[in-house]
Each structure stands twice: as structure tokens, then as C-alpha cells.
């Protein structure tokens, strides 16, 4: 059974929810990403491999595995590095290294080779879209969390690295959601 995990894409200044599907089978080593990835998305496999290894898990290239990642809808061009986190988590779950709960959650983030999460552009539209579609939680790089601080009724979880994200998803670590600063901002709004 392929594994499903949700992420989002930016189209102009609007966002769309993207389904990331990961299928693993035994065979000659290969890692393919389909669904019109641009260069940054296609290179994701290299970052994911190293980040997984640095975080203490088995990377795909250490075993005879065929990994297929599909980004749906397949006819929409996927741009940027924000799919690193969902691909890495999807791979770990599909290869049965972790047992997380991905339900009703959205994942965004770029990985560095040592497993740290790096901030990405365009968080605010994604967070707004996630709330509009009724998702309960979004997991994103810590440094981006403040950008989404104005959105209420959505749990914004800022994580620092891949390991922390895994621990959080397996309920081994509690991360309190970023507190909405909306009211504080509205109160302190400077009169120009």
C-alpha cells in the first residue's frame, strides 16, 4: 500500500493542497519523483537521503529499494524545496522505520543534509489555505512559525529538525502549538 502525506504548493499568491504518495518495493536501487517536479523538487531525493542518514535512520540507498514519490495533482508544476519534509517522513513511514499519524496534518519544509529544517517562502498563503480546508495541524520549520502567527483555529507546530518531527509524530515529544499573536497585533497596531 502506498503511503499518503499532505503538503502544499504555491500558485502565485494562493496555495493548493498537494498529495505526496510514496511507494516502496524491493528491487534495483532507485528514487524517482513524478508529478512535474522542477529541479529543486527533483533534487529533494539527495537532501532527503542524507538528512535521513544524519538523523539516525536507514537511508534508501543503504538497501535494495525502489522508491517512487508521486506529487498529485500530477499536472500541476511543483516548485521549490518545501516537499523535503513530507518526502522524508513519507519514506520513513513507508519503510516502516516510524509509525506516525499523518491524518489531518500538512507538512512543509526544506531539509539540510544534517537533518535541520530550513525556512521556506510563502508560508502565509499555505497556512490560510490549510485553515480554509479545515485541516487541524500544520508542521513547518521553526523559523517560519511566526509568519503564520496571525491565523487562528489551526495548530501551527514549528519543528527544528527531522528527528524532532518524528518524535513529535510518534507522541514521544510534546511541542506546544505556536500561539496566535493576532490579538496582540491588533491591539498594538500603530496608528500611522
Amino acid at each position: 500500500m502506498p503511503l499518503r502525506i499532505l503538503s502544499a504548493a504555491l500558485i502565485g499568491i494562493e496555495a493548493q493542497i498537494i498529495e505526496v504518495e510514496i511507494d516502496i518495493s524491493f528491487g534495483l536501487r532507485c528514487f524517482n519523483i513524478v508529478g512535474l517536479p522542477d529541479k529543486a523538487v527533483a533534487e529533494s531525493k539527495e537532501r532527503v537521503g542524507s538528512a535521513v542518514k544524519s538523523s539516525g535512520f536507514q537511508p534508501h540507498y543503504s538497501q535494495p529499494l525502489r522508491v517512487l514519490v508521486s506529487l498529485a495533482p500530477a499536472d500541476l508544476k511543483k516548485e521549490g524545496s518545501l516537499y523535503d519534509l513530507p518526502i522524508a517522513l513519507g519514506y520513513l513511514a513507508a519503510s516502516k522505520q516510524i509509525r506516525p499519524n499523518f491524518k489531518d496534518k500538512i507538512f512543509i519544509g526544506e531539509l539540510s543534509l544534517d537533518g535541520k529544517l530550513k525556512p521556506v517562502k510563502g508560508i502565509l498563503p499555505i497556512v490560510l489555505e490549510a485553515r480554509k480546508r479545515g485541516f487541524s495541524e500544520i508542521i513547518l520549520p521553526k523559523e517560519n512559525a511566526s509568519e503564520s502567527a496571525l491565523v487562528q483555529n489551526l495548530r501551527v507546530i514549528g519543528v527544528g529538525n527531522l528527528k524532532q518531527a518524528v518524535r513529535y509524530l510518534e507522541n514521544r515529544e510534546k511541542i506546544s502549538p505556536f500561539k496566535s499573536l493576532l490579538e496582540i497585533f491588533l491591539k498594538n497596531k500603530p496608528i500611522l
Partner: protein
Amino acid sequence: MIGPPGAGKSLLAKSLPSLLPPLSFEESLEVSKIYSVAGLLPKDRPLIYSRPFRSPHHTSSEVALIGGGNPPMPGEITLAHRGVLFLDEFPEFHRDVLESLRQPIEEGEITILRSKYSLKFPARFTLIAAANPCPCGHLNDPEIPCTCTSSQIAMYKRKLSGPLIDRIDISIEVPALKYEKLVSVDLNNSSEKIREKVKKAREIQRQRFKKEQGMVNSEMSIPQIKKYCQIDSRSQTLLRKYVDSGRLSARGYHRVLKVARTIADLELSESICFSHLSEALMYRIENDH
């Protein structure tokens, strides 16, 4: 704004955002979204609540100004959404760049087409353009003689096309300052007082467009102009003269009415009087080339 170098055109433009009313929460979210996509949102202040002020250099390319590239990014006009776009040395911009501004000025948004999809970026900005009256900058100056030849001046003016000029509602001359003016402190028209006036006018507009959230006079459609911009017979005669003699285009006609409506709002007048209309007409650039 047309004036000699050093008269304070840039300074005036920069002070405009402070006169405008602060962004509403919805507008603020809209602007923050754009800045989030462009990666320009400050980390410690995730909501932008002051109106943006953008002043791109006159060598800017079309893509930098309009938006585009791969992946498509918002350009300066989108970053100036709900704020002010200031183009200093207006005639020095590349002609293609200036002409590409035509559509967004009219529609308040820009559509970027790609082979697979099309994108819409919002671009509802107030355009302020500054220019010298001629290449040397001293045409019509009472003190310093202009050293340009008439053909140079004509060429300089030709850089701005008629259709673009037609879209500019208000043109003012900014003359060089005299010493008394430069050192005097005029408290009658301080920023606060003007801001108060603007606020009142915006309040009137908010009442007028109750059904259309957050609309202002400049966004009126033609049926709305017919409804809200009634003028007396004396003003009608004046406008007829302008339109029939070809000095005012159909677009110009509607734009003048909108400006007149705003002038009336600023003076807290219910109807548009003759003086409001003639003031609005005075601000238009005459087609002298």
C-alpha cells in the same frame, strides 16, 4: 509631478503613505501574503500594517516591475499593492516597462501567462511619477535658463505615450522653492490635519460603498459613476466642451468625475459642485504633443 531637480518631488512622494489611512485587517493580510511569497516578510513582525512604499530604480526591467520569472514571483507593482509605487525619473524608464504598466493601472491586477497555467497577482497601487520638465530640468524656471533645444524637449516629452498620460489623474508642478518657503513652518496644513481630512473622506466613501467592502472612489465602475457622480448643468456644459473638442477622452471623462467626487468628499460636500469639477479638470495633463 513635474519640477526642476531638487524641488522636493521625491520627498513629497515619500510622505504620501503617511497621509493615507492605515490598512484594514483584510488588506493587511493580503499585503502580508504577497510579502510572504516574496520572502520579504520581517521575522519579528509577521503582519504588515503600514502601506507599502516601493520606489524601483529607473533601470528596472519589465519582469522586476510587473512580476514573472521562473518560478513566477510578484514584481514591484504587486509589492506596492494597497500602497504607493513611486517611479522617480519617469521618462528615464524603458518604454516597454512603462507601457506594460497600462493594464495593471486599469485593472488593479496583473495576469502572468505560462504555457500550462496563468497566475493573477493583485496590483492595486497609487502610482506617483516624478519627472523633470526637460532634460536639463529648468524649462519654465524663472531664475535659471533652460539649455535644451526644442527638439530635445520634444523628444523627452515623446517618451511618455498618450495612452499612459491619459491614465494619470492628477498632475502637479513642483516649482523650485524660495527661501522664505524653505525655512517657514506652515502649521496650517500639517500632516496630521491632512490625515484627518483624508480619514473623513474615506469614511464618507465607506458609507457610500457599504455593500462593496473596502471600495474607494477610484475603483468605481461606470454604472456606479453614473449613480454617485451627478453634476449640475454648468459642469455638464464645461465637460461637453472638453469632450467634443477632443481634449478629454472617454476614459478621461470618467476619471475626471472620480477625481471630482474625491475632491467633493475631501471638502465634505454631498454633491459635486462646479468648483470641484473644474479643479479636477485642471489636474489633467493637456495633450500638447
